[in-house]
Each structure stands twice: as structure tokens, then as C-alpha cells.
């Protein structure tokens, strides 16, 4: 006669006594067969063995409480014994216990195994293929979207009354005016850092005064506009995706279509125009702040007076250096706005998708800005400016 018992000090648990009499295994279960106590018997129950080909009799008379976990543990034990060729019988079960065990039998359906885990190597290859295909279709989709926006934009130019002025001005304020402090501060600090780092290197050659050229060329041609584009992609591109995406989740975009409003016209055009118009202005502001920071640093570290700085800048920097930076701005603005709106419209019906699309929007727009910037560099080098 062996007994298993999950009772602990003070609380009554579940217990099971087993006694083998010849070819009969007598089980007596008692106590509270609930989740908390019965689970502690699971290993012992799995070890329970009966005389082969014999009979198992479960006496449930002393069970004082049972829940579905307890009932399941009893049921699966009896079931296993049956599968091992024994006959099982339930005796003295209260209506509750009998009912619970019947419930278990009624709901004992084979559960499908979780899909098998794929071989790691195959998964990597498959993932690579899937991603490549996905990128391919995204590019096609993106080009189609560009065409759609251009078509709508063309229509707007032909019929200017279609342009929604209020949202345009609203978005210009959001993406342009409100971005001034952050763009200004970052550009100013980068100017300071550039001047300081440049100065310490150039001092070794006694060529401190070239720090003006360094700041002028790098800020005007590249850093001013790139920094602005990255900041705007982070704060406005992501905002476009999140705004349009949550409207998509809310079915607002579908509602627009049913009301005869074109989402491209209503949502995409004002945002795109706002960014195309505001990014050159922001880039200009960034240029000035970068030069200001660089100039201040040059003054304080190298004693290059503001007068000297401006004179040197005038002498060494041509007008094209400035225009090379500014010309890129509307293109970057267009890219950021298109990616932001495109990803927003790609949002599926879940909040999770808004988050993942927003991340993609920022990463993709910064990536595209860098690529296009490189293309511009090659182009400008080719035509010699």
C-alpha cells in the first residue's frame, strides 16, 4: 500500500492511496483535487502502474472538492492505464466528481501538435528569399504610389481649387515651424564640433584659417541638409505614418473613400507639399545655424574674428556650394513624405501594425535619403560643381 499526498502544513491537499490486491489495483482518492494541490501529484500519477491485464478501481468517495485540473489529472491517469491494457472502474463518485470526469471525457480531443520548428539553415534561406521578394514588391508598389501621387499632384496643379489650403498650412506649421528649435540646436552643435575637431587637426599644419573652408563646405553641401532630413524623417515622416495608420485602423480612410474623398488628395498631397516646401527653408536655417556655431567656435578657439570669418567664407565658398545643398532639400522632402504616407496607408487593421510601419517608415526614409544623397554627389562631381 502506497500513498501520495500533497497536503502541506495546515492546508489539506489531494491524496491518492494505491493498493495492489492480486490482479486488482485499488485506488482511493481524497482531499481537494484542485489546481493548487493536484498539480503537485502530477509526477507521481504519471509513475503509477497497475498489474498488467488487471482491473483498476478508483474509489472517489473521499474527494471533497474538484476542479477541472484535478479532474483532468485523474482522467488522464485512468486513460493511460486503460491504454496500457487495464480495465478501469469508478466507484463511489459523488455526482460532482462523476460530472467533472464526464466533462473531461467529452472534451478530450487530440490537440494538434505545434507546427514543427524548421531547420535553422532552411529558415535563414527561406527568410532571405521572402524578404527579397517582399522588397521587390515594395519597390514596385512604391513606384506605383509615386505615380499615383504625381498624377494627383498634376491634377491639383491644373485645378488649384482642389488643393486643401488649411491642412497644407497646418502641416507646414507642424513640419516646418515647429521643427526650428530642434533643427537649429542640432546644426549649431554640429557646427561647433566640426570647428573644434577641424581646428585641432589643422593647427598641426599651421593651417587654422582653413577651418572656415572646412565648415563652409561641409555644412553647406552636406551636413546642413542631411541633418535636417534625418531630423524631419524622425519627427515628421513617423508622424505621417502614425496619423494615417491610425486613421486606417479606425476605418477613417475607408469612410473617406465611401464619401467620395480621395485619400491621396486629402491626406497625402497636403503633407507632401508641406514637406517639399518646408524642407528647403529648414535646410537654409540649418546652414545658417551650422555656420554660426562653427564661426563662434573658430572665434573662441582660433581667434578668427567674425569679420575675418565672413571674408574668408566669401572668398572660398562659391554660390554653387550653397545651392548644391538646397537643391537636394525638396527631393528629400518628397522622399520622406512619400515613404511616410505610403507606410501609413499600408497599415493593416491592428495597432501593432501602426508601430511596425512607423519604424519602417523612419528607417526606409533615412536609407533612401542617404542613397539619393550619394547619387547627387556623383552627379555634381560629374558636372563639376
Amino acid at each position: 500500500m502506497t500513498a501520495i499526498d500533497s497536503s502541506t502544513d495546515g492546508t489539506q491537499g489531494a491524496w491518492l492511496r494505491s493498493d495492489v490486491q492480486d490482479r486488482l489495483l485499488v485506488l482511493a482518492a481524497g482531499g481537494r483535487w484542485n489546481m493548487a494541490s493536484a498539480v503537485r501529484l502530477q509526477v507521481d500519477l504519471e509513475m503509477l502502474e497497475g498489474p498488467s491485464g488487471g482491473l483498476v478501481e478508483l474509489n472517489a468517495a473521499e474527494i471533497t472538492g474538484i476542479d477541472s485540473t484535478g479532474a483532468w489529472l485523474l482522467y488522464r491517469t485512468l486513460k493511460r492505464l486503460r491504454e496500457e491494457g487495464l480495465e478501469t472502474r469508478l466507484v463511489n463518485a459523488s455526482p460532482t466528481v462523476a460530472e467533472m470526469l464526464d466533462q473531461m471525457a467529452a472534451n478530450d480531443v487530440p490537440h494538434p501538435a505545434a507546427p514543427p520548428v524548421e531547420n535553422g539553415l532552411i529558415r535563414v534561406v527561406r527568410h532571405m528569399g521572402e524578404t527579397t521578394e517582399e522588397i521587390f514588391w515594395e519597390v514596385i508598389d512604391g513606384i506605383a504610389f509615386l505615380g499615383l501621387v504625381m498624377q494627383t499632384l498634376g491634377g491639383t496643379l491644373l485645378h488649384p481649387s482642389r488643393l486643401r489650403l488649411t491642412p497644407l498650412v497646418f502641416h507646414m506649421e507642424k513640419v516646418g515651424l515647429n521643427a526650428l528649435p530642434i533643427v537649429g540646436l542640432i546644426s549649431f552643435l554640429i557646427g561647433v564640433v566640426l570647428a573644434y575637431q577641424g581646428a585641432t587637426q589643422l593647427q598641426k599644419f599651421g593651417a587654422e584659417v582653413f577651418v572656415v573652408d572646412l565648415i563652409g563646405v561641409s555644412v553647406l553641401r552636406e551636413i546642413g541638409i542631411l541633418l535636417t532630413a534625418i531630423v524631419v524623417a524622425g519627427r515628421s515622416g513617423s508622424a505621417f505614418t502614425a496619423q494615417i495608420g491610425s486613421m486606417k485602423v479606425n476605418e477613417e480612410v475607408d469612410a473617406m473613400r465611401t464619401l467620395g474623398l480621395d485619400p491621396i488628395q486629402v491626406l497625402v498631397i497636403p503633407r507632401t507639399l508641406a514637406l517639399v516646401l518646408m524642407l528647403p527653408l529648414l535646410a537654409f536655417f540649418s546652414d545658417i545655424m551650422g555656420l554660426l556655431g562653427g564661426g563662434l567656435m573658430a572665434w573662441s578657439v582660433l581667434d578668427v574674428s567674425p569679420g575675418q570669418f565672413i571674408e574668408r567664407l566669401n572668398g572660398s565658398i562659391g554660390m554653387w556650394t550653397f545651392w548644391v545643398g538646397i537643391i537636394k532639400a525638396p527631393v528629400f522632402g518628397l522622399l520622406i513624405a512619400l515613404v511616410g504616407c505610403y507606410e501609413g496607408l499600408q497599415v493593416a487593421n491592428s495597432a501593432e501594425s501602426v508601430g511596425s510601419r512607423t519604424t519602417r517608415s523612419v528607417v526606409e526614409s533615412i536609407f533612401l535619403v542617404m542613397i539619393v544623397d550619394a547619387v547627387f554627389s556623383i552627379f555634381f562631381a560629374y558636372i563639376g560643381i
Partner: protein
Amino acid sequence: MEVINDDLPTTAMAMRLRGVKNQFGAQVIHESLDLDVRRGEILGIVGGSGTGKSVLLRTIIGLNTPQMGRIDVLGEHVAALGPNDRHEIEARWGVLFQDGALFSSLTVAQNIQVPLKEHTEMSDVLLDEIAALKISMVGLPAEAGNKYPSELSGGMRKRAGLARALALDPDIVFLDEPTAGLDPIGAAEFDQLILRLHAAMGMTVFMVTHDLDSLHAICDRIAVLAEKRVIVCGTMAEMMQQAHPWIHEYFHGPRARAAIATKEA
């Protein structure tokens, strides 16, 4: 008929609310609200839109702290419990939120296993078996276990949510509009499901609902929220005799008559 009855012993009560006050800003939702819920009964909460039915449910399960009043659940003064006791009592109730509130990154089976893993120590095999058992008990096909919530229909998500709420064999189940958004057949099936599980497991059911068919079909008692408190609490037959204008309109309106006709048919 009376809302509260202090003569009944505390052990016969699943929940006891006294003088509960809820206020958001200047807006008072509940004021000196009293309610008794007896063990093992199915209580339906009805009330007009904005009377704070869901707020009441959230207050009882502790997602919302009342400004005043005392709430006892299963004989414990919930607000006064320490973190450990609170953890313990949370294992004794299950909540079905309106759209299931399943964790979207987990499969249905994993969703059901979340409370099991948190509150018990089961082997992985047993976890899978119990999850499959609960899935079957709420009437979902076995394949649903490996699916993600987004792959299920609204009705199936509610069933899966119920399976998670029932994972720990709770003493009390809170249901927030369980049949809202289901087609009439699905809603009737869900009613029967609750009734069947109630018969099998004997838990107390606290159900916020607007569904007159549900009220007729499964509720033992009905509590009416109006004028910032529970104005009456009683059986369906008692509700039919109420003179209060809102209650009369609610239980004698055209939709109510249709529900009664269905019940009698």
C-alpha cells in the same frame, strides 16, 4: 428585491460592495453604490449607456480605485490586501474583456497558459493538455489552439478569451458584454456555453450586458444601474413588476417583448 441583505452570512457572498463612489473629474459616476452578489449565481448588470457598468466591473477587479467605499470579494477586503494576497485573489477570478483582450503576440493556447504558468507549476505536457481541454470546453475546434488572435473571428476570440478567463477554474468570472457584436446564433450559443460551464464548474458569474435574450436565458438575478447606484436587484419576474420608468421601459419595450416571446416559444 432589495439590493443588499446584511442578514445573509458573508460566506454566502461572492462580492459585497458598500458605499462605493467613483468620480472622474467633476463627473460623479457612482455614489453610495451598494451591491451584493451571492456565491454561485449569474448576475446580470444592466443600465443605460454611460451609467458606468464597465466602470463598476473595473472597480471590482481593481483596475479602477474608487474614491470612497469598501469592496469585499470572496470575503476579502480587496483594497486592504498586500501584494501577495492580492496576487492570490486575482487567481480566483477571471475576466473576459469586451473583445477578448487576448495577447496578440501569443497563440490561443499560449494565451490560456499565461495564467497557468503564472500561478501554478505544471509540466509543459500538462500545460498543453489543460490548454487543449479549455479550448474544447469553450467549444473551439482543436486547431484554434495554434492560431493567433488575429486569425480568429470575433466570436472565436470571445470564446478564446473565456477559455483564458476560465484557465484557473476561478470562483468568479467577470464578463463584459459577452454577446455584444455576435450574431444572434453566436450570441445564443455563447449564452448556452456560459450556462453549461456554470453548471459544470459552479462559479459566480458577474455579467455586464445589454442583451435582453441573455438576461432572460441565463441570469439568476439582474441588477439595474441608474441614478448613480444600483436601484434594484432581483429576478426577471421581479423586474417585470417594477414601476420605475426606465426599468419599465427597458423590460417592456418592443425588444423586451420580442425576447420574452422567444423565451416562451
